[in-house]
């Protein structure tokens, strides 16, 4: 079987992997130990395999690993900083938005991507976003609430940072 090398960044770390040319990104990520990326349908329909590639949420089950060459990939494993959870992760826990957890990594990453480019989404925008993450457990209400709450928490944090800066704080 032919192999090829790809070079990419995953969660900020440089990686060089040997893959088969037809390998899908989902399979390679899981093979390399990123178990948080889930297999749900293998047709790009359910969103369980969502990861961020160059800040965009994509379905890794229909992306060829070779296409990730030179890209920055973020999986759920890359979100928390040690014990400190990302605000979206915290919001999901606080709002009971996690039940079985299988769709959760995909939802959280998708939400992260949205909040990065659109810090004040409307409920309709969040629903449109989460329509790409199928969930059979929650009925979507709490995940939508969690994303909106994370947006608000992000606002409060930014305001706090701004006021700290303007007060001449020395810490970044």
């Amino acid at each position, binding site marked *: 079987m032919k192999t090829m090398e790809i070079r990419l960044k995953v969660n900020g770390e440089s990686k060089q992997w040997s893959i088969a040319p037809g390998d899908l990104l989902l399979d390679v990520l899981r093979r390399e130990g990123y178990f948080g990326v889930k297999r749900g349908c293998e*047709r790009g*329909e359910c969103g369980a395999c969502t990861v961020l590639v160059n800040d965009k949420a994509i379905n890794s089950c229909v992306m060829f690993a070779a296409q990730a060459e030179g890209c920055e990939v973020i999986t759920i494993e890359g979100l928390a900083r040690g014990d400190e959870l990302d605000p979206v992760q915290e919001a999901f826990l606080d709002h009971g938005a996690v*039940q079985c*957890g299988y769709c959760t*990594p995909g939802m959280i990453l998708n939400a992260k991507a949205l909040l990065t480019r659109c810090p004040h989404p409307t409920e309709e925008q969040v629903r449109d976003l989460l329509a790409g993450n199928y969930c*059979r*457990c*929650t009925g979507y209400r*709490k995940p939508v609430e969690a994303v909106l709450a994370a947006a608000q928490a992000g606002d409060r944090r930014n305001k706090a940072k701004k006021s700290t800066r303007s007060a001449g704080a020395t810490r970044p």
Partner: protein
Amino acid sequence: MNSERSIVGKNVRKVDGIKLVTGRPAFTDDIHIPGMLCGKILPSPHAHARIKRIDTRKAKALPGVHAVLTYKDVPRVPHTTAGQTWPEPSPYDTYLLDSKVRFVGDRVAAVAAESRAIAEEALRLIEVDYEILPAVLDMEHAMDRGAPVIHDEKDSKGIHDASRNLAAYILREIGSTEEGFRESELVIEREFRTQRQQHCPLEPHITISWLDSDNRLVIRSSTQVPYHARRQVAMILQIPVQRVHVIKPRIGGGFGGKQEMLLEDMCGALTLATRRPVKIEYTREEEFYMARSRHPQILRIKMGVKRDGTLMANEMTVLATTGAYGSHADTVQGNTGSKVLPIYRTPNMRFECHVVYTNTPVAGAFRGYGCPQGYFAQESVMDEIAHELGMDPIELRRKNMIRAGDLDQLSAELGEGKKGLPRLIRSCGLPQCLDRGAAAIDWESKRKVGPNGVRPLGERGSPLRRGVGMACSMQGSGIAGIDWASALLKMNEDGSFNLQVGASDVGTGADTVLAQIAAETLGVATDKIIVCSSDTDFTPFDVGAYASSTTIISGGAVKKAAEKVREQILSVASKMLDEPADNLTCRDNQVVTKCECRKSVTIADVALHAMYKEKLQIMDGASHFNTDSPPPFCAQFAEVEVDTETGRIRVLNLVTAVDLGLAINPMQAEGQAEGAVAQSLGYALSEEMMLDDSGRMVNPSFRDYKIFTAKDMPNITTILVETEEPLGPYGAKSIAEVPINAPAPAVANAIYHAIGVRFRKLPIRPEDVLRALREKAGLPHR
């Protein structure tokens, strides 16, 4: 409510929450096992056929193939795949591999190979000559004289009448419905049809098995029923139960589809044949047609009332199909009777049901377990009765509904496949559910518009019509006298505890709820409880996650075990504090005196003292079951908007008011209700497994099997009503299933309110709406 409770009733974060939001390896597939082979099953392309010849030589010769199994290679042990307590009420009509196939997707053979690609290639190399047999696809013809016999094998057991394709037959009567109808002043008789629904767990079925160093068969599986799976695998593979070790990791949803021993036997057989770890993982497509589904039913219901709304007689006659095998055939349909009719105090009730085999995908357990079908029929007719009598639909319910103190006799007649126990209603919050739900949806003002609910929106001539409807339901909490659970609790030297439970958290939050119950009872914080669940070597028995039993039955066992452990803690503390144990109580991670003297010692100190001074391991266990199954009650209200030009139905609001006894974790309880609502709305409006006329499923993908997404969901409101059930830990009953029963009839009733048309077939599709509107207007078909 008991204001002294500090943990139970609180929105404690899920104990496995951090693991899940950080994507830690926790699910069945989240491990690398060196040397693991890929197992795959060859599905039958025919709905009904005999295998005349099967030649696996080419497949076996393919490099990388380690085993190819056919019916010739495995023991023939009749069994059921239904995850039920032994002896299972479902017929023993299934075989690991057989020389006959009975539906498109049935097992023909299985391979284990070094990669998925090789396994798939091997399947293609298996040569099979089939003798194609005429198939029975239509349940209405399954019992016809001369219909092909699906189970003509001699060794199956427990089939009611195989020669007529009759898997199960149920007939129960209370009083005399004939007399009841004679005394009625209004009799309505209607027929309803419900479809096949698939669970669509985000994680398809998956099992990994291997032989450990002691040559025991270890099975790591996405299952709701690890203990039943252990017993069944042992029986089928003809090895002792003690040689089988089943582990249930985190599960990506089950909803009843995993209340089944589905892949474990085949996976184990391949491991035994190859001596290697083997993984069988369903693709989404396989999950759709080779797993399980909800029983489709044709329900004829006849209800008789007096003019004042008093129900006199209720007769339900059901024809259901269980597909090619009888998993849960008797019990699901039994529930259609036993959990549906008795919600009203009808003196005369009759339930008759034929459950037939057809050469179609196999039905099994699915959240609600027969109730969604039954309540669709019954609550639709109740709505019709109310309309005929000029009564508010809620008033009609109030007049007839079962109350606290009542005895439900029908349950006595319709136990799980045998005579059951009568059900005493000790707690019933249905009146509050009706009140609070109606208020939440603004029932009074939204109903005022008149029975056809003509409320033009916005401009004149808008094609949109809105309406509201309601329905109510009950379920059970555990199976009386049959479901049971046990728990072990041991204390660690820092005052933490290991809670070992056989209970299966399939995403439902069971681990969290059980931790909360233990913590409350022990007087410690929830984070002091380390939950270890569902490992047949390390956790004691539990029937598994089904029948809404975990909180009440597993929780009951946990509470008992925790009470015993608390006694031991108090006994040690009493020595430490020199106080009699009955003057001590556990609270806030401490043991404190009840009296004013305020002596206390931390739970951690008690632990250290016990371990190193007393040389005592504080630990105990308990088993628990109930002789009754206290029903949770639920009233659901739907507001819909019908586009009379396109037939599209939008659900705008869905209110669920549910009496769950007590919410151990209110946020989790709400989440259960909200997920159930989503599944029920899909059942009402968009989900259907479609089969072509050769019995093949034509929409085995999310593209064409439409479940609700975040964009489809209405505004949901969940109201938790608490009634403190005596049989439940801290008063809890259940909530896992009941909210899935009434949204479909509530939506159908709301549609009637909006456009004056009744739909008696699910799913209600836009084309059906347009056709009905045209008929109503007396227009010709296009």
